[in-house]
């Protein structure tokens, strides 16, 4: 066995152990409930629990006609008090929340239940997708610098795995968003947009690879393309004002932060997916190397026949 075979086995083992642990943590250990997600305009983040909520406010809430039902079991009504208009929010546990009226209310979720568990898969696959694309970028740079085929194989294998994980991240993200925001996609969200653009760029990268003959020329062209793609996309997102932020920036329980058990589950999931990525990458690179050897052997046989 080669050295990489041992490495691959170790990666697979670690990934398997971590995946089992992560699944146990996500479905048994970590609580599915008790997560509030507030997702507000950047400028108005001052969400606060009014304590104590006066009886008048509750009465105002109950008597008010105007209300918005959110996707989760929370009700929102507008109300008036001496400070002007207010959002009054009543969630499933009949906890009252209160917010400034100029706070643009976008998402409010309480008791997310099983939908929350998609989160672990979503974050981990998105992380692996970004990692894979960065490795493609590095591999492409290294190929142009050194002209060694192994870097081209690294870049291509990583891009292909990245596409798979990116697709998974987009699908799980859509499911999660349907459960929390009530819609599958938000065009005004920067992170969603960026992930989609990266996905498109690397789909074009794979199309380029499949429309070109194997060899040095293909390696050069695809390296140039992936460098341009990876360079431009983050730049355009670093500098624009088209999008408003609506990705969950505040993930808070009532105590004010993600619950500890959920943090540990998330970290486990991220590590499990990273090792899985490593194992798949090594396997994929082996396959590509073998394909290249096969081509060489075919060439030799052809030469002998001739």
């Amino acid at each position, binding site marked *: 066995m080669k050295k990489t075979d041992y490495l691959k086995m170790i990666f697979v083992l670690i990934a398997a152990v971590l995946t089992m642990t992560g699944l146990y943590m996500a479905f048994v250990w970590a609580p599915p409930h008790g997560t509030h997600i507030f997702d507000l305009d950047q400028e108005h983040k001052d969400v606060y629990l009014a304590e104590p909520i006066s009886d008048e406010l509750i009465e105002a809430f109950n008597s008010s006609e105007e209300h918005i039902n959110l996707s989760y079991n929370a009700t929102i009504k507008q109300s008036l008090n001496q400070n002007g208009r207010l959002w009054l929010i009543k969630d499933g546990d009949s906890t009252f929340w209160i917010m400034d009226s100029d706070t643009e209310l976008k998402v409010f979720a309480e008791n997310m239940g099983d939908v929350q568990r998609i989160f672990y898969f979503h974050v981990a696959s998105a992380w692996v997708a970004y990692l894979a694309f960065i490795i493609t970028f590095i591999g492409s740079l290294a190929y142009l610098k050194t002209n060694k085929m192994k870097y081209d194989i690294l870049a291509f294998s990583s891009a292909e795995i990245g596409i798979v994980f990116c697709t998974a991240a987009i699908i799980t993200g859509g499911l999660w968003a349907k459960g929390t925001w009530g819609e599958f996609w938000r065009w005004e969200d920067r992170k969603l947009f960026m992930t989609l653009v990266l996905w498109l760029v690397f789909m074009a990268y794979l199309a380029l690879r499949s429309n070109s003959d194997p060899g040095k020329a293909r390696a050069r062209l695809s390296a140039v393309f992936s460098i341009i793609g990876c360079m431009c996309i983050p730049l355009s997102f670093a*500098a624009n004002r088209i999008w408003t932020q609506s990705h969950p920036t505040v993930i808070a329980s009532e105590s004010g932060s993600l619950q500890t058990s959920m943090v540990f589950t998330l970290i486990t999931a991220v590590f499990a997916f990273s090792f899985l990525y490593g194992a798949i990458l090594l396997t994929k690179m082996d396959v590509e190397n073998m394909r290249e050897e096969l081509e060489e052997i075919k060439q030799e046989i052809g030469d002998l026949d001739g």
Partner: protein
Amino acid sequence: MINSMLILALMILASFRFIFSFIDFSETQLASPILWITFFFSGMFALAPVYMREVEQGTKEGLMLAPISPSAIYFGKFLSTFVIVLGLNLFSTVLFFVFFAQPFPDMVSLLTIIILGTVGFTALGNLISAISSNLSQSQVMLPVMLIPILLFTVVMTSVEATFQIFDGAVLADIMDGIKLILAFDIIFVASGYLLIDYIIEE
């Protein structure tokens, strides 16, 4: 060649006019997207044959044998396509005001955005066109590779700035957008200059 590009630009604008004929256009905010979609697609057809022609006519070897660097070839192609695409865009802009009864915005800023956007468009478009000329199905591969990169950088920024211009902004109001497009122009020209060696070499 140039004739058919002008006709294509006319056709794209006419198709927009037909599609939007039952919308009260003066109420809509579609002027800047229509303008830039027309620029993008007519410009793409201007870019497609730039390197393909060399391959088809067998003059690529001659170009590579010439005692000039690939960057010089790139800049030559860049300048010639820039002139063609800019002419095409100005022609489309004139047609646009004929077809759609828009009040005239601040022309200085509109021209600035069109010129700067065209620089970025041709700089990156030439590079991608050089890549796609080496591929099978190069006619399909050019838009496939161009759309995700170009549409989300130069074109989207230009659309936003043009939108502000149609909204009544003057040059001083759109400085942010101009700076951003200038940054993209510099990046695309620089990456074309640095990376063209790897594409043209055999």
